[in-house]
């Protein structure tokens, strides 16, 4: 269970989502392409067993495996678990059973879903068959699910070349993780102060260094930090680069200057964009101040204050 959030600590959903590509290699390519034509392929191991789904390398001898065989679309449930509340992306939207099915002709079992009205309708040893998806593309989802079946048993596995026209060589596997993100006590306090256009760091009780943004602990001393210290608003550009590549998801025109800025009173630099000055006039030691956006949580960028540049010796330890 998620503990009740403290009112001072911020929380927000964080969704991590990405479509990964996978090159299949010869064995998985044959297996998934087979499904497209309602053909289930396994692989024969060095000791003669038939593995379904197939693998590229023998789990016992580590030999490379290439001896493909075709097995039946019917099989026996070897074990199961009822899934009362399916989540997004699972094979069926109504409650179903996760089953391990040993297809006729195979020696190992395949994990998939069984469409059944309830857990009372499922048992180990029950006979099932593949329900094929109407549209098949060469993916494990070409098997829509399994369903109960009381027809004849399939025979022995038979050799198969594994050769198909237009084989599937890669797949896209969408991945998604849902998190609840909480930045913690120190950063929540820092963000709250930023909303009032003030920047607060935290001082380490041991080494006295001021951390901005604060993390709630000093990474050098390993002790908690609590004492708040207002820093800035002005600071010094310690170093920088000129970015000439437009970031895909960032609405900033290039070139722009990405700088490390040591706010007055802080013991390490934070990173921000420099504006209000041609990019090729930015220099180490430039004195800058924040420019706050209308409703932003952070300064939009920093601009020159007009003060003389800071002497190198005053910030060289912060590089």
């Amino acid at each position: 269970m998620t503990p009740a959030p403290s009112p001072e600590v911020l929380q927000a959903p964080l969704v991590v989502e990405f479509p990964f590509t996978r090159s299949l290699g010869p064995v998985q390519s044959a297996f998934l392409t087979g499904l497209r034509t309602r053909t289930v392929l396994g692989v024969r191991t060095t000791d003669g067993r038939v593995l379904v789904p197939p693998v590229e390398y023998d789990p016992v001898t580590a030999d490379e495996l290439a001896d493909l065989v075709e097995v039946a679309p019917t099989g026996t449930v070897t074990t199961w678990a009822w899934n009362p509340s399916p989540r997004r992306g699972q094979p069926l939207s109504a409650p179903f059973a996760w089953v391990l099915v040993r297809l006729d002709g195979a020696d190992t079992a395949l994990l998939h879903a069984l469409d059944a009205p309830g857990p009372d309708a499922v048992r180990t040893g029950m006979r099932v068959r593949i329900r094929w998806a109407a549209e098949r593309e060469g993916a494990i989802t070409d098997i829509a699910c399994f369903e109960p079946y009381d027809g004849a048993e399939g025979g022995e596995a038979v050799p198969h070349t594994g050769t198909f026209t237009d084989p599937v060589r890669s797949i896209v596997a969408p991945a998604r993780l849902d998190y609840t993100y909480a930045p913690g006590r120190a950063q929540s306090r820092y963000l709250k102060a930023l909303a009032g256009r003030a920047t607060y760091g935290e001082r380490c009780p041991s080494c006295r260094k001021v951390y901005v943004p604060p993390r709630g602990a000093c990474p050098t001393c390993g002790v908690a930090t609590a004492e708040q210290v207002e820093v800035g608003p002005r600071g010094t550009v310690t170093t920088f680069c000129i970015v000439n590549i437009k970031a895909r998801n960032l609405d900033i025109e290039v070139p722009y200057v990405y700088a490390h800025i040591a706010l007055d009173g802080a013991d390490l630099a934070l990173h921000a964009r420099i504006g209000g000055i041609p990019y090729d006039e930015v220099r180490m030691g430039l004195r800058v101040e924040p420019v706050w956006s209308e409703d932003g949580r952070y300064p939009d960028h920093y601009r020159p204050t007009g003060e003389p540049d800071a002497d190198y010796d005053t910030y060289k330890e912060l590089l």
Partner: protein
Amino acid sequence: MTKEPVAVVGIGQTKHTAARRDVSIAGLVREAAVRALEDAQLTWSDIDAVVIGKAPDFFEGVMMPELYLADALGAVGKPMLRVHTAGSVGGSTALVAAGLVAARVHRTVLTLAFEKQSESNAMWGLSLPIPFQQPLLAGAGGFFAPHVRAYMRRTGAPPGIGALVAYKDRRNALRNPYAHLHEHDLTLDQVRSSPMLWDPIRYSETCPSSDGACAMVLTDRAGADRAPYPPAWMHGGAMRSEPTLFAGKDFVSPRAGRDCAADVYRQAGITDPRREIDAVEMYVPFSWYEPMWLENLGFADEGAGWKLTESGVTELDGELPVNPSGGVLSTNPIGASGMLRFAEAALQVRGRAGEHQVDGARKALGHAYGGGSQFFSMWVVADTSPAG
């Protein structure tokens, strides 16, 4: 009780390339492992344990890939360990494997590292959209470019040094059949005039994105006696880490790197690395890191690393050849890049580096770093077994 001496008797790697669409991840690692076994003239049954490393799982999106790779690496029924230290992982993986031999836990260990960058998204994997934080403003190169500028300011290095490194490493890569980039027609002028991506870093001064794997067979003294080819002997190995950001961090010459080098030299009995080491494979993903690491690793005094590069000392035929294989600038399957440095150092002292062999190399350093300059791993290998 003294440690068991550790010998490298087998080295294998794939031909690194932008995309290996013909193989799965299992097929990729298998290729490197089979080549390492062939080099050692051993079979799967001779291997007692497997130690594998790669960069973050988010890169390819296969969580704990070592579980699925056990069959491909003959690891069923044997101990299999996964190591993870960001970009330095290839180095630290080899050191964990070496530790198992040195401690006499296992006699012969297969160690391997890989990345299939074509099926991954490193940029995305490293910069998740964390709520309440400003989006990352500059990307990976943008993270390192300000430190390069700081190095130039601190040392007075002239602006052309980075181009010299990139040109040298790409030329060296032409002699390495496994290197990803083989830019036969590249000229120094082209490097100098390539687009400025993150000023002061130009396009030609950055590493490529590669699919590849590297494997090594490490064994004890008895195993080395049976090896068909000369082994490389480990004379020292060390790892150090420090936070990505902390007050007082020296990004130009991180303390963890300096301490790690000092430790590995002490183990190897090296007091003057510049004179005593014959070849260096260091992790240089952006060209300027060559002079920076030359100082960090004690090959040059502070402020003088660029002078070694400028005067040709680090060329293949120089006094201290750096990255004769072409380095990370020519080949970068991230998780494997560190192990490639370690393996290339071993190839040099075994005299088996082929066209990029450094004449008379007897002692070599392999170096890797990763994260925000926070993980370091190094080893020193030599052509003779350590004393004692």
